[in-house]
């Protein structure tokens, strides 16, 4: 047996031992001097008392010194240890990490993980330390080392299933670092997980101290989930396109899917092939709903229920509509002026639930522009004063107009009719082989600016921008290629060349899609009020009046008060519909859904390490804490000291 200290720094406190010794020495010298006539009686009285007093002082000094020493030792946490070969019964320090990510909600994986953790605690040899931690951190207390199995089991019971995932590699490294303060030689992290792929950046995450326990016991998990909802408006109806994914290797037949919007429910059956997905549209009449409203798409439950439902919010932003006006339409759409533009916008619309309409020049003259948010004019030859006025109003009301030029465009007509909204004046045509140069603008990303040089221009209109315009991209001879002007609440972009590849290669370069998307996003996000979020995303709460009276109510009914001056809400740990209330009145709702990535239960292949073989043959220190005995010693000494003083003062 050897003695060691778990917190040896506290031993510095032994210096306090000097205090009673100094006090004793000072008392022996006595600070008070006095002349007295009857000293002979004092001497005769002191005869036996002097010896008695000396003994008393020394005993009290020893007792008080011992009390101080023991108090210091209690804080220093003394532990006796012996060297022992590593065996099953060797005390160790174990961090049990319980995977509480969403995928662990599959079947009874999570409850099995909790039981497994309790078994691990029960099997810990005497003298071991353990630490319990969820894999996905929550707002509960920090993990702590303890020998108390009852306390550790209490922590296990308190761990709750999360609806998200985390960076597993980093989290496990962090937890292992917490084990470093533990006294035992052998330090292990036991990860009880379903080995689901999400959260693992490094599939080769293998550590000598990591023991992975596959709670799913290697079984393949079949899961389906509502992975996407998309809202569209068509002919006075709202169409909710629900995508259901099948993540298993077996096909799913007649999967009942119910879409609810208000009181109305529409049912559909899905047949989905293995590892495939299927989308169906649910058509709700606009007349029947009160905007803004919310709903959900829910499939029949499988063993992972939490991803079988997806919530959505319908609001005015879902009316984001794009109009593409093709000034040179062809029967073969690939030859049309707007072919590349339409493809790009279709791709973008998949991400942002936008509605695209493509019309020709004639239809454009009769079109009601007020229902659109973004209008692309591609090689429009005829502009009427009425449409010019509508375009101006459209811009005033916050719409964005993007103008591509072409051989049908008459510069004079544009300059006259669209004078108020054009970013500059169209001049003559220039034919010259030019490349593009990015301007010093923070609109486009560095990536776009670098790639823009790949664009070759054969022909373009010379353009004289007005002073209130911004040249975003120009040619190598300093001719403007893309110019922007803000007008009213909206803006107008003009490309001085065509939208098709007749005058340039712009539509067929990798720059085209990002540039169009950027223009789309600037409009979309300027008009959009985001209402759909993922778990753990931070929501910027829109405050109508004041922050102090604003509360957010989560799907469980729990109310969160916003902190003063920071209308941000980050308690989005539950999927469902959240309400924002100001002064007791609901102002709007937003939906929080789980990340569909978690629904894919595909596993990674981290090998399970049975035990740390490297340490098996060596010696380890087996600790047993004994500070409690010292604490009892302190109490006993305090009692003794008090009793001793009482006896001697009589």
């Amino acid at each position, binding site marked *: 047996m050897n003695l060691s200290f778990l917190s040896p720094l506290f031993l510095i406190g032994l210096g306090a031992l000097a205090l009673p010794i100094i006090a004793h020495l000072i008392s022996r010298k006595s600070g*008070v001097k006095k002349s*007295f006539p009857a*000293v002979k009686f004092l001497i005769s*009285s002191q005869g036996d008392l002097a010896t008695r007093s000396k003994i008393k002082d020394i005993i009290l000094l020893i007792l008080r010194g011992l009390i101080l020493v023991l108090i210091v030792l209690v804080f220093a946490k003394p532990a006796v240890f012996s060297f022992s070969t590593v065996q099953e019964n060797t005390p160790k320090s174990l961090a049990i990490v319980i995977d509480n990510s969403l995928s662990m909600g599959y079947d009874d994986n999570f409850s099995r993980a909790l039981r497994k953790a309790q078994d691990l605690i029960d099997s810990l040899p005497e003298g071991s330390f353990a630490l319990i931690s969820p894999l996905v951190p929550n707002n509960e207390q920090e993990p702590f080392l303890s020998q108390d199995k009852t306390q550790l089991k209490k922590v296990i019971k308190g761990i709750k299933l999360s609806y998200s995932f985390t960076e597993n590699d980093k989290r496990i490294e962090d937890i292992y670092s917490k084990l470093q303060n533990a006294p035992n030689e052998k330090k292990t992290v036991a990860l009880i997980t379903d080995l689901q792929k999400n959260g693992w950046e490094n599939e080769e995450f293998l550590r000598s101290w990591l023991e992975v326990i596959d709670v799913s016991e290697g079984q393949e998990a079949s899961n389906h989930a509502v992975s996407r909802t998309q809202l569209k408006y068509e002919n006075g109806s709202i169409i909710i396109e629900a995508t259901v994914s099948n993540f298993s290797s077996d096909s799913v037949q007649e999967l009942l899917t119910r879409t609810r919007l208000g009181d109305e429910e529409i049912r559909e059956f899905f047949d989905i092939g293995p590892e495939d997905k299927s989308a169906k549209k649910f058509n709700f009449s606009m007349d029947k709903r009160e905007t803004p409203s919310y709903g959900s798409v829910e499939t029949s439950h499988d063993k992972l229920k939490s991803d079988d439902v997806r919530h959505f919010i319908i609001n005015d932003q879902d009316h984001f509509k794009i109009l593409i006006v093709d000034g040179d339409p062809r029967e073969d759409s690939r030859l049309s002026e707007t072919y590349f533009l339409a493809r790009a916008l279709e791709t973008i619309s998949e991400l942002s639930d936008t509605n695209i309409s493509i019309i020709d020049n004639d239809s454009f003259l009769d079109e009601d522009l007020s229902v659109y948010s973004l209008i692309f004019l591609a090689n429009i030859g005829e502009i009427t004063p009425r449409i010019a006025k509508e375009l101006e109003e459209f811009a005033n009301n916050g719409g964005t107009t993007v103008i591509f030029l072409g051989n049908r465009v008459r510069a004079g007509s544009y300059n006259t009719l669209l004078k108020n909204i054009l970013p500059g004046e169209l001049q003559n045509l220039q034919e010259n082989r030019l490349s593009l140069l990015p301007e010093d603008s923070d609109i486009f990303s560095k990536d776009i600016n670098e790639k823009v040089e790949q664009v070759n221009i054969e022909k373009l209109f010379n353009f004289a921008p007005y002073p209130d315009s911004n040249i975003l991209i120009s040619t190598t001879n300093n001719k403007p290629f893309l110019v922007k002007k803000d007008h009213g609440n909206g803006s107008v972009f003009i490309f001085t060349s065509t939208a098709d590849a007749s005058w340039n290669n712009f539509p067929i370069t990798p720059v085209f899609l990002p540039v169009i998307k950027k223009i789309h996003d600037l409009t979309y996000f300027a008009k959009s009020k985001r209402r759909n979020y993922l778990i753990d995303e931070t929501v910027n709460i829109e405050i109508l009046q004041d922050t102090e009276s604003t509360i957010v109510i989560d799907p469980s009914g729990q109310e969160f008060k916003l902190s003063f001056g920071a209308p941000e809400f980050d308690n989005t740990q539950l999927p469902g519909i959240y309400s924002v209330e100001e002064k007791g009145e609901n102002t709007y709702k937003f939906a929080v859904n789980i990340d569909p990535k978690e629904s894919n239960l595909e596993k990674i292949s981290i090998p399970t390490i049975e035990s740390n073989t490297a340490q098996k043959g060596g010696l380890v220190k087996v600790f047993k804490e004994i500070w409690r005995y010292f604490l009892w010693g302190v109490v006993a000494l305090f009692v003794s000291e008090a009793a001793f003083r009482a006896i001697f003062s009589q």
Partner: protein
Amino acid sequence: MSNSILDIETALRLKGFYFRTPSKVKGYKAGIHKSYYNGISPDFLDHKEYNKGDELKQIDWRLYGRHDRLYVKKFEDEVNMRWCILIDKSASMGYGDNKSTKLNYAKKLSATLAYLLLKQGDSVGLLGFSENDVEFIPPRSGSSFITTILDRLESFKPSGTTGIKEPILKALEAYSSEASFVIVSDFLIELEAIEESLKLIRHSRKEVSLFHVLHPDEIDFDFRGSVEFQDMETNVKVIVDTGSIRHTYQKRIGEFIERLKLICHENETRYVFSPINKSIENSLIQIADK
């Protein structure tokens, strides 16, 4: 200056009291004390059978008529008394705060007693003593003598060790005839020395009264904490934990007082316990008669 040690108020309150000796004295002036010389006083004392030599005028003829035998009347005579006040002026008597020292108390007590004794017609002498210093004023009567006594008392300063035998011998030498001794001291000396001195006085057929003057600190020992005490006469130092020693000390000083009382009793000496917080009046009244 002298008035400061003479407690006139106390003296006035004790005006109706007389300080007498318990035994008869051989006075030569008329006073309040019983004289050995019978027959002069009108106070009848006793009868005795007539012997040759007795004065005929002292024969009690009435008793002769009744008993048919001759008896002679014996009368007591009251004579004045000679007093010697011995006051301890050793260093230990200087204990106390400012004017509340034991010596000051002893001076006041001695001055007041001397004043009263002179007032009742006795003669008073004064002897201030310490081990090596004895100051003596021979006894005289007459009220005006108080001034001399007061002046001398005023001049006493605490110094030296306590020695009682030498001053007693000196006083005995000065008072060869009948006298009464009053010793005012803290008696912080060996009891054997006190006993020996008292016996000397008693052998000389003189009355003795002791005023045992102590400071309350010496009785109660009301000190706190650890204190280094230095003896005022011997300079011996001792560090004591006052709390732990108090009880034993009180026991020791109590035993000393009791033994001193016993010695006084054995030597027919009046003992008056006079801590300085006791009034002079209460101390003096213990040796006074109405």
